């Protein structure tokens, strides 16, 4: 007997309401991104739990010849209450939008999943959420095979088009701290990176945005992110 019901556990990356009144939810799991629809956006106990950034277990019902599974039951596994703070919310939105943008369908990404879960926990509790977002954005990109390269570890320029840290005078000029960060970010642990926050991050944000725009496309949250920085 084939099973039409499937239980999936993951983090809600995005929810949007269709003109039809249905709610479509993107869920990040260690096995990729799943989308499901909750009919009519009525606040059934289910839809209420389908909130952004939350960790949920859902039951998805797969109907014949429809690609979007129907969300039939939702169990809340964890919610982080501090992600709505003004200094955190745009950062959490940015990371989730980034992952939602890059991850397409089923793929084995246990590392990305763990990184995003960790990033959200970090944003929820760390007293330097901006640094959490910056570090984790680079780490997330790395986990998705989108690490930038280091042409010259002593380089002080970032060439977004080629995605390299370089000593050639092209692209974004970096502070010494930022150059060192970019040269080492993919080799250091998150813990180590978090323990050495960098006071000046303007150029790192520029690098990150430019790199993402060039290699993944424009994210809507950039705009809000900039306005609150």
């Amino acid at each position, binding site marked *: 007997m084939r099973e039409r019901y499937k239980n999936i556990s993951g983090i809600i990356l*995005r929810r*949007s309401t269709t*003109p*039809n*009144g249905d709610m479509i939810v993107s869920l990040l799991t260690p096995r990729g991104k799943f989308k499901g629809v909750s009919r009519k956006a009525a606040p059934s*106990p289910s839809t*209420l*739990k389908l*909130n*952004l*950034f939350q960790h949920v277990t859902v039951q998805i019902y797969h109907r014949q010849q429809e690609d979007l599974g129907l969300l039939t039951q939702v169990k*809340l596994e964890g*919610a982080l209450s501090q*992600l*709505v*703070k*003004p200094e955190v*919310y*745009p950062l959490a*939105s*940015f990371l*989730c*939008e980034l992952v939602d943008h890059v991850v397409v369908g089923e793929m084995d990404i246990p590392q990305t999943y763990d990184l995003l879960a960790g990033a959200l926990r970090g944003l929820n509790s760390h007293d330097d959420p901006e640094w959490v977002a910056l570090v984790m954005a680079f780490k997330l990109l790395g986990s998705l095979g989108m690490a930038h390269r280091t042409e010259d570890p002593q380089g002080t320029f970032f060439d977004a088009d080629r995605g390299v840290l370089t000593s050639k005078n092209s692209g974004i000029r970096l502070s010494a701290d930022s150059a060192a960060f970019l040269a080492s970010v993919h080799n250091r642990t998150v813990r180590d990176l978090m323990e050495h926050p960098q006071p000046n991050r303007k150029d790192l944000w520029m690098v990150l945005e430019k790199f993402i725009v060039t290699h993944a496309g424009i994210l*809507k*949250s950039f*705009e*809000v*992110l900039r*306005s*609150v920085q």
Partner: protein
Amino acid sequence: MKYPSSLLQLIRELSRWPGIGPKSAQKLAFYLFEQPQEDIERIARLLLSAKEELHLCPQCFNVTDKELCEVCSDATRAQNQICVVEDPGDVLAIERSGEYRGLYHVLHGAISPMHGVGPDKLYIKQLLTRVTPDHEVILATSTTVEGEATSMYLQRQLAPTNATVSRIAYGLPVGGALEYADEVTLGRAISGRQKIK
């Protein structure tokens, strides 16, 4: 067969309306076609006059057909209370509850970076200029992540005004069984419990 283009256009138009799928749009189009001429004219006039007569109140940004909206121009309402909501429909809902006699402020949305909606896209600046230390500002944005983030943002922005700021209550909706409430709501309903004198 090609369908009459005026019918097709009507169906296409209707299917763009919120909550109306392609099947319903077709059904609606045929329904409208079967109505007498004068009814169709009335509907067309209604649409035009609604659009023409309605605009946003310059004080609270609710939809109105008066210069100042009916709530803002009603001297009997508590002038020192401003209830902040996301959408004009929320004003309607709160009015129907009959529990509120103050003024409103309609933001026309909630902050949602992922959808490109920052604070500057909402009527937040206009709210800040209205508020004085004598006001009670009631934050009645929704309890979704977007609504909560907007409420938090407003709390920060309103702090310098020295106004009293309050948030609508979280808890069990009236008419519900506990088993349908999720644990977060239930937790709020317990911690926010009210003494019965």
